[in-house]
């Protein structure tokens, strides 16, 4: 049994949006633990509060109930030890080159001084195969390349946990698969802790070693499942994807769930 303390603990967290007219509950009393070197996937239908939950872990939103702890300390505000990769392509600063985008993150957060930052930025750009584009501006890159830069930037922070909100969702299927492989390769090299949000079952199975299933809006924890990276059958001959599907929808029939 692994009894190491969790890197990240989410403890009965409720998240709400207050608008002028009413209060929207996005996630309700969510609890889970993320251990060191986990590839922890949050999976659930659109609108179930995955992004909201991840933003709360990032410190951008305050829970209206419960607590989030990173290495035992309550999360109060955004911080570079929880580096974020967003779904949107516009997360790179357009006025900085690829290299400077990463250097900016490292120096502003006080992680490194400029000379060391340059070195580390170059190293991580090499890891995502973008060495040739070091001095390019973001608007000259393809969508997939931009996401790779964003991943390199977040990884260069060598954060306690890397938060990824559907980073590949806006990519075509081919590129997406390639990026999934690259991410796993990077993980193999450095064994960093990832929390990865997706609404694709195959992606969850491929990326995660542990999958959190959330109910439709407002999100509640339905299950936590282990994955070995492929869609294997259990002793009853049920595939993992079918089990996940069944759990999410309380049935095994077809629904409009994303299968790509």
């Amino acid at each position, binding site marked *: 049994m692994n009894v190491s303390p969790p890197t990240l603990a989410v403890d009965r967290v409720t998240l709400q949006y207050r608008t002028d007219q009413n209060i929207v509950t996005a996630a309700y009393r969510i609890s889970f633990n993320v251990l060191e070197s986990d590839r922890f996937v949050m999976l659930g239908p659109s609108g179930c509060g995955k992004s909201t939950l991840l933003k709360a872990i990032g410190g951008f939103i305050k829970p209206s109930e419960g607590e989030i702890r990173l290495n035992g300390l309550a999360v109060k505000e955004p*911080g570079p030890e929880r580096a*974020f990769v967003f779904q949107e392509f*516009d*997360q790179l*600063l357009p*006025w900085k080159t690829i290299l400077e985008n990463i250097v900016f993150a490292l120096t*502003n957060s006080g992680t490194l001084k400029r000379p060391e930052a340059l070195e580390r930025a170059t190293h991580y750009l090499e890891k995502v195969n973008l060495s040739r584009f070091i001095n390019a*501006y973001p*608007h000259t890159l393809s969508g997939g390349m931009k996401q790779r830069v964003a991943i390199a930037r977040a990884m260069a922070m060598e954060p306690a946990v890397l938060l990824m909100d559907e980073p590949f969702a806006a990519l075509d299927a081919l590129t997406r698969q390639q990026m999934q492989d690259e991410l796993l390769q990077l993980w193999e090299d450095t064994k960093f802790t990832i929390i990865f949000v997706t609404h694709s079952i195959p992606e969850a199975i491929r990326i995660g070693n542990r999958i959190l299933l959330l109910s439709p809006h407002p999100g509640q924890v339905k299950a936590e499942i282990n994955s070995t990276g492929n869609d294997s059958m259990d002793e009853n001959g049920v595939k993992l994807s079918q089990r996940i599907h069944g759990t999410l929808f309380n049935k095994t029939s077809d629904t409009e769930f994303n299968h790509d």
Partner: protein
Amino acid sequence: MTDSLSLQSKNDRPEFFNELLEPIDEIQPASVTIWQRLYGQGVLRKFGILLILAVIWELYARSLNNPLVFPAFSDTLVALFDGFLSGELLSAGVATILLLIQGYALGLLFAAILTTLASVSKIGADLLETLTAMFNPLPSIAMLPLAMVWFGLGDGSVIFVLVHAVLWAVALNTFSGFKSVSQTLRLVGQNYGLKGPGYIFKILIPGAFASILTGMKVGWAFAWRTLIAAELVFGASSGSGGLGWYLFQKKNELLITEVFGGLLTIIVFGLIIENFVFNSIEKATVRRWGMLQ
């Protein structure tokens, strides 16, 4: 489901696979003639148009043959050079530019203060919105009589009017630029530890730079027109006597060729600032960053 459909279609075309791809050659850009290259230069095209206009001017003035109403282009050029050589036109131009720089800089400073207030507090935002709604429609030159009462007949009142011309356009554009900086960029800034002034200078200002520049251009255009008009009204009493005053004086002495020379100077100054200064800034920043097409 696809398996329940029979999608059989006739297909006689053989399949093929390329084992080896062609090596990639450098592709030379299509050759262009010298004329095409010259035509491609915006500056040259515009210069050509100016040349044609000058010729039309010259011909028309000569056929009219009344230099008191419409002097020829060549005479205007001569008057222009004389004006510069004698130092009269030059010192008038310098006086105008100096005043403009002071008013413009002060306007930018106040705009910065107002937008900072507006971005840190709701009441500041309301203040900015109310003030711009009130004062933006008011032509700055209309403030001149009042300014003369408050600041006397010196540079002070002209600078006051200039500040009024620059302030609202810049503040309004900057603030709306700040508001339109994408949510993702804001979160990225916070993620990497930016707060307060750092956040404003490293995320909001560059993120809103396209609209800040627009505001600065509009403010500049307002200021330039307002200044010439203000000088026309009371340049001499301000002691400096800028370009506007030069025009007024020469008209009184019925030196119409000199008036044309003064007008030409005003146009050229305006062109230089708009085409060289602002365009260069734009090219080096927002166009380079792909934030403006």
